[in-house]
Each structure stands twice: as C-alpha cells, then as structure tokens.
C-alpha cells in the first residue's frame, strides 16, 4: 500500500472516530440542556398553578394551558415528592400522540390533595436536536471529503521529490560511470535524504572501485609468479638430457601450476560475478552454443566413449557470452568427468529449462553443500569452484539451478 493510502486510512479512521465520539457527547449534552430547560419551564408553570390555586381557591381550567396538558387527580396520599418524567400524551391542540415531558406533584385545594401532572411537548426540542444533528452530519461528511482530497492530492505532491529520488536510486548501477543526479527540493527532510543518498552512493562507488582494484592487484600478484613458474618449466624441459623420471616430476609441477592458475582465475571470476563486474550482455542462441560445446568436448567424450544425446529446441537468451561459456564448460566438464566409461550424457533444452543428465556414481550426491565453494566429491580432481561458479552465474541471471538423482542419472536442471 502506498504511503498516501496509509496516511489516508489512518487519518480517516481517526477523524471518523473523533467525529463519532464527539457526536455522541454532543447529542447527550444538547439533550441534557434541552431537558433542563423544559424542566425549568415546568417548575415555573407548576408554581403558576400553585399560585392560582392559592389566590382563587380553585383548580385552573384546562383551556388556560396552550398545548400543555394538565390533569388533577384526587388522591388520598398525603405526601408525593415532586418529580419529572418522559411520557407520551395526546396533544390537545394538534390531536395526536406526541412525546412529552411531565412534572408530577401534589397540590392542596380546599383540603383535598390532588395529584397534579403537567405535560409539555418535547417535539420542539427534539426537532432542534435533529436539525443540529443533520448540520453536524453534513459538516462531518464535508470534513471527511476535504480530508480525503487533501490527503490524496497535496500529500502526493509533497512526496513527489521522494519518488523522484526513488526512481533515481532504482536506475543506479554501481558499476556505471555516471553518478546520481538528485536535485534540491523545498523540503528540508528531502534535501537531507538526497544529500545522504548522494554521499552514500559516492562512497559505495569508491568502495566498489577499491574492490575492483584489489581484485586486479590480487590477480596481478598471483599471476606473475605463476607465469614465472610456467616459463621456468618451459625452459627447463628444453634440456633433453633430463631423465624420464625428472620429466615425470616436471609434468606434475605443470599439472599443479595449471590447477593453481585455473583456481586463481575462478576465484577472481567469482568475485567479478558477485560484484556484477561482467555486463557484456547480448542475445545468444543457446542451442547453437551447446552444439559448439559438444564439438569442443568431442575429444574428452570420445576418450571416455560417452554417448551424447541432445534434444535441443531453439532458445534465445540474454546473457554474457563469456559467463555462459563458463557455465556450459563447467556443466559439460562435470558431466564428462564424473561419467562412467560408455556412459550416457543427455542434454535437453526447452524454452524454460536446460537439463544435463549423466551416468555416474550409483547413489545420489549430497545436495546441501554441492554448490558451495571448495565442496567437492572425494574422487573429484577439479578446483572445487566449478559448481559455485555455475550457481553464481545462474543467480546473476535470475535462473534456478538444482540437482537431483533419477536412477541411473545425475541430473542438473537449470530453470530460466
């Protein structure tokens, strides 16, 4: 939900509750005041009646009282406390039932006690309360509408700089050369936000640059000694007086150096992928790339007498050619390396997935750590970074990679 909607919701709920509670208090207060007023009038009138009786020594006539209704009932009771109550009575003038307010008390006339009840109409006060209620309701609706519109338009306008900053941040790419261009606004908070974001982005860019330099330096520092070892060995083997055993030793050094060089390259590549340093994205035909790879690995495939089956449908994909190459290299390499002699390698490419199936060990592999760095099978001679690279390349492209065992095949499935 948007901020303005949240604010709207909160403010409208609060306003409605306040208005509602206010209306209840308001209603009761007005009612109370109106009743008091009626009661005062009734006391005045009853005093008038009492005076009349005192002066004239007889009960007043009914007609003297306008719309009010007064009744005298002879009673034997000696004492009755004067009290007020609500009642319904027949309005003598309008000839209909109406809500009324009554006072009851005892009057004495010629030694007789009379229970006197004086009823006045409550219609007028109720009408007043209704009018006031209506006006209040109209005001409330008006207030709510105004609030809603104000919130919606003014608030959106106020937050515009924020959304601009947000849009800028969304398009921010740390490996880009261009910096954020956040304009000043009239709101101090947003200016502060922009300044902070700006300085943070600059710092991130600087850190990123430092990291890139570190990566390059690390690469340089390790590659040069490796180059020295390789060139020394290349020079050493020119001496043909060396014995076969010595050549064997040299061969082993070659192999280790080669492995070290590949390890170094893979580590640097991992860092580069994690920092999104490789962004030569282009549209590629995955099916033809796989066909090329099959040719490229032909020697290894023939060497192990592996039977390759491909079911490739046309698939175009946006990715870095370099990374896709590494991804396929690793998948092929694993599927061949861990295959059994005379085994099968089945490659299926659909519009939404790529599957590598190969024979191998007769039990499922441990899925948990398979894609972690330097986690490799006991019998693996690889660097231990191959599947970590695969996973990172997939993550970079928002693909999903998973492994499962489907007797007798080990299956790597990549969902685009």
């Amino acid at each position, binding site marked *: 939900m948007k901020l303005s909607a949240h604010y709207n919701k909160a403010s409208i709920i609060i306003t409605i509750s306040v208005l509602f509670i206010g209306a209840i208090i308001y209603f009761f207060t007005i009612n109370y005041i109106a009743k008091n007023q009626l009661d005062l009038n009734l006391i005045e009138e009853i005093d008038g009646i009492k005076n009349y009786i005192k002066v004239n020594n007889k009960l007043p006539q009914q007609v003297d009282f306008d719309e009010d209704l007064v009744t005298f009932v002879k009673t034997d009771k000696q004492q009755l406390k004067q009290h007020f109550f609500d009642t319904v009575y027949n309005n003598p003038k309008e000839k209909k039932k109406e809500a009324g307010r009554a006072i009851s008390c005892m009057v004495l006339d010629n030694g007789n006690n009379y229970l006197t009840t004086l009823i006045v109409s409550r219609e007028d006060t109720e009408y007043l309360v209704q009018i006031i209620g209506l006006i209040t309701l109209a005001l409330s609706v008006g207030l709510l509408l105004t609030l809603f519109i104000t919130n919606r338009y003014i608030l959106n306008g106020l937050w515009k700089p924020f959304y601009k900053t947000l849009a800028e941040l969304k398009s921010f790419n740390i490996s880009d050369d261009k910096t954020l261009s956040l304009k000043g606004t009239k709101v101090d908070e947003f200016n502060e936000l922009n300044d902070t974001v700006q300085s943070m982005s600059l710092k991130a860019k600087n850190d990123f640059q430092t990291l890139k330099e570190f990566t390059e330096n690390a690469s340089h520092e390790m590659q040069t000694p490796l180059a020295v070892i*390789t060139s020394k060995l290349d020079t050493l083997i020119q001496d043909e007086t060396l014995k076969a055993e010595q050549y064997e030793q040299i061969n082993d050094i070659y192999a280790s150096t080669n492995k070290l*060089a590949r390890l170094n390259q893979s580590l640097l590549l991992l860092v580069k992928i994690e920092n999104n340093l490789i962004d030569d994205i282009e549209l590629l035909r995955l099916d033809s790339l796989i066909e090329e790879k099959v040719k490229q690995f032909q020697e290894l495939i023939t060497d192990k007498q592996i039977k390759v089956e491909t079911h490739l449908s046309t698939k175009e994909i946006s990715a870095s050619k370099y990374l896709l190459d590494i991804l396929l290299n690793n998948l092929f390499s694993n599927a061949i390396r861990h295959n059994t002699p005379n085994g099968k390698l089945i490659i299926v490419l659909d519009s939404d997935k790529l599957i590598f199936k190969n024979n191998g060990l007769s039990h499922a592999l441990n899925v948990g750590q398979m894609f972690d760095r330097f986690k490799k099978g006991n019998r693996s001679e690889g660097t231990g970074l191959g599947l970590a690279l695969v996973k990172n390349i997939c993550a970079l492209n928002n693909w999903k990679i998973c492994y499962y065992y489907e007797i007798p095949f080990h299956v790597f499935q990549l969902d685009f």
Partner: protein
Amino acid sequence: MKLLIIEDEQALRENITTYFTEDGNICESCANLSGAIDKLSNYNYDCVLLDIGLPDGEGFEVLDFLKKTLKDEAVLIISARNSLDDKIKGLNIGADDYLTKPFHLAELKARVASVYRRKAANSNNIIVFNEITLNLLGRTVEVNNIPIILTRKEYDMLLYFIANKSKVISKNAIAEHLWGDEMDMHNNFDFIYTHIKNLRKKLLDAGGCDYIHSIYGIGYKFKA
C-alpha cells in the same frame, strides 16, 4: 626478428629472452617504462612484448608513444590482468594481441610469430618450412607441392610446431593452445596423441620428413 621485452619481473624477462634468442632472434629487454621509451626512441624493433603493470607507469603509455612517433612495431601485451576492459583498451590503442599471464613460452612464441607475420611489410601469407608450405589465408598445406588435407586441429598444431621448431613443447601447452585455457582437460592429454599421430602420418604419407618427435613423458618436439 628483433624483439624488445618490457617486463618488470626479472625471472620472466630472462626466460623469455632465452627462449627467443635460442632461435636466432635478437632480444633486448628492459624492466620499466622510462627504459622502454628510451630504447624505442633510439632503435627500431620488429616486435614489442609489453607488460601493462610496470613499476613506473602503465604499459599503455608505450602504445601511446608508438602511436605519437608513428612507429609501427608489432605489439603484444602480456598482462596479469585478465580484464575485458584492459584487453579492449589495449587492442584499441594499437596493440596487436593480448596474452594473459600465466602463459606457456611456446604460446607466446606462436603469438609473436603470428603478429609479426601480420605486421611485416613483405607478408605474403605463406610459410615455407623445408618441403612444407602453409598458406595462411586459405589454411591449406602442401608437402612437396602436393596438397594435403588437415583437420582444423592438425593445421593449428602444425602451425604451432613450426613457430616453436626445435623446442620441446609440453602436452600441457599444446592442449591449452588447441582447446583454450578455459577448458579443463582434467590433465588427460591422451587425445593429443591421436591428433599428433594423424598429423605425422599425413606428413609422412605426402613424402615429408619425420619432424615430430615424442619426448618421453613430457611432450613433443618439432625437429628442424
């Protein structure tokens, strides 16, 4: 061929010098940028091997210098940086090739031979080695003027051997040259043998000499 090797790592510089000099090339070397500029302003070379990370500056400045002074030495960058940006930058400002460390000396030699051939004014795209003639444009091979048909790998191998004639080349280096260093060969180089055997047989069948000798356990040598 007259070479200038600009490389700050002494051991590497010496090895390259030795490897190239044995073949009758004239090699000079220097360890820093100022020395390189000094040598290049006084002498002409056929080919320059250039390290990018030098103690007193970036090797790119050598390329700028060559461009400014209108010299047309072939330049091969040997860099520890396997960064696409550097590669593109280097090739854009006049380098002819880019080789990432670590590399095999045989690979370096083959690359130098290739850029030198491309740059040489009298280039006719034909390499003649005794009775063997290679036509680089058509990628065809003749032995005693009889065309022989080689596969792509065999042709590349022959070219590689001729560039490194009289050198012992490790199987490792051959595999990397033919299949690229990104492909993990699992240290299994048996299948190189198949290609070598076929190439050797084709050359012999066409009446060529037996140049390719196996050096037990380590690799092969193309005996001149």
